């Protein structure tokens, strides 16, 4: 792998950028691997990255049904934050934010991580109480969080309409929060793991698991059988489908969550603004598009479209809060399939099948956790026992009762 640098940029500029090498190979699957990761999204690729980099396991394949980062990794609103209520969540998501901070250097790939600050608006007394409780909990976990007044919000976002139907009464600010370039995360990880000898196999759909005596032996794919000592499944919205193939059920439901972007504008928002109460969040990409998201659809679906009424449901509050955008045209709209647990916390777990591990249930907010999720999952797979940060997120919690109920704090705001 040639290191990307200012010098490689100049060298390639001299040959009109015609000689850049491919970022990763397209190998044929080997007959057997030490670890197979099913799902070539950010979390799966990050898992392979930490397996190779920190656990010394490089005989690894990442198997992807479509193309890399074509699922929720390429469909989210790129927000990164760690302002969660519960200790377990704070540990997991802030672990991720710390890894985000050095990711571009680690991968030698610019993921354009920008800690531009993230505002959570409060619109009523209950919101104020919620951010009060959560803000203090976040601080107790040693994570940055500030309460700010409507006047300070106005200073950060001069065109906001504070006196709208649901007036802005205050906000919670996480300055370390921000955005990253989602595609670059998938590509950067793929390039880095390829250089360490991991096989990235695209257009290869897993159609079944080979399980003998309760132990997983490999996966059946559209390109034939591939053996594996251990298998990690990181397939987001399709996790229930994978679990059914392996012979058990997961406490998950899959819902479409949609987002849309506007035509590119001159720089206008230099932070991320989220609002749980009225279901709208907005930021501006480096290309200038407004990136807008809202709440998910209420019914189980794998349609990857999103329902029509949600567009109005999100656009309405956006226009009310930011009248300046009322005549901005929307350019694209899409949906991703989110695997949602009842407590809105992820599942990182062993399964009833030995050596088969699942990392799922990230629901509407997985992107922000990409490096942290991969890191703890890789260590769990390598050791055969769950990493301490991942342990509370086991699927056992759905019958032990130790749920990590982020529903109140995080509702739809991811």
């Amino acid at each position, binding site marked *: 792998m040639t290191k990307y640098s200012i010098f490689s940029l100049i060298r390639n500029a001299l040959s009109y950028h015609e000689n850049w090498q491919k970022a990763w190979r397209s190998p044929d699957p080997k007959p057997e691997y030490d670890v197979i990761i099913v799902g070539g999204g950010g979390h799966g690729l990050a898992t392979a990255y930490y397996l190779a980099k920190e656990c010394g396991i490089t005989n690894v394949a990442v198997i992807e049904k479509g193309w890399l980062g074509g699922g929720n990794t390429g469909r989210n609103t790129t927000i990164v934050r760690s302002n969660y209520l519960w200790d377990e969540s704070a540990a997991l998501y802030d672990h991720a934010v710390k890894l985000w901070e050095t990711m571009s250097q680690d991968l030698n790939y610019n993921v354009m991580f920008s800690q531009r600050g993230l505002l959570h608006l409060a619109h009523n007394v209950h919101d104020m109480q919620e951010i009060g409780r959560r803000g203090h909990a976040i601080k107790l976990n040693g994570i940055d969080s500030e309460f700010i007044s409507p006047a300070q919000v106005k200073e950060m976002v001069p065109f906001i309409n504070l006196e709208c139907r649901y007036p802005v009464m205050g906000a919670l600010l996480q300055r370390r929060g921000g955005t990253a370039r989602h595609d670059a995360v998938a590509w950067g990880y793929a390039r880095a793991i390829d250089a360490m000898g991991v096989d990235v196999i695209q257009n290869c759909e897993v159609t079944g698991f080979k399980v003998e005596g309760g132990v997983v032996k490999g996966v059946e794919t559209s390109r034939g059988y591939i053996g594996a000592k251990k298998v990690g499944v990181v397939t987001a919205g*399709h996790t*229930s*489908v994978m679990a*059914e193939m392996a012979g058990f*059920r*997961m*406490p*998950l*439901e*899959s819902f479409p969550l949609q987002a849309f972007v506007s035509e590119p504008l001159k720089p206008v928002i230099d932070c991320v603004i989220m609002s749980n109460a009225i279901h709208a969040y907005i930021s501006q990409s480096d290309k200038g598009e407004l990136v807008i998201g809202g709440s998910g659809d*209420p*019914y*189980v*679906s*794998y*349609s990857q*479209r999103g*329902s*029509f*009424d949600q567009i109005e449901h999100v656009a309405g509050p956006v226009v009310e809060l930011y009248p300046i955008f009322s005549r901005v045209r929307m350019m694209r709209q899409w949906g991703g399939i989110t695997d949602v*647990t*009842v407590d809105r916390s992820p599942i990182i777990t062993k399964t009833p099948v030995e050596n088969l591990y699942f990392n799922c249930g990230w629901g509407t907010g997985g992107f922000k956790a990409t490096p942290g999720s991969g890191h703890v999952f890789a260590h769990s797979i390598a050791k055969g026992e769950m990493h301490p940060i991942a342990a509370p997120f086991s699927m056992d919690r*759905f*019958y*032990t*009762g130790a749920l990590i109920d982020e529903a109140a704090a995080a509702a739809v705001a991811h």
Partner: protein
Amino acid sequence: MLMITCPWCGEREQIEFSAGGQAHIARPEDPAKLSDEEWGAYIYVRDNPKGVHFERWVHSHGCGKWFNAVRHTVTDVFWDVYTMGEEKPWVPEDWDGLTTRAQYETAKTAGQTAEGGEQK
């Protein structure tokens, strides 16, 4: 907009309805006898199929009544709606969710007629 047929009110827009999740989940007869695993599964584990889904809806901004429906989760096309307490309707295995029930049945009838014609 997804159109949903309420068994009592007829076809209405989806925004009039609320989704109620998987249908036909029977409450265990004697919850006290269940293990923690079984009770957890009853409370939290759902079918979540990529395909035919039996589910509940309530016409919250209409008649307010609950009913069951069969929908394909890839295309969001409904096969049928039926009232609470009715048996699950039969869904053919080769229904791919791209057609409505009426279209499927018309195509089947046409196909059978054509086959019959060939035999003659």
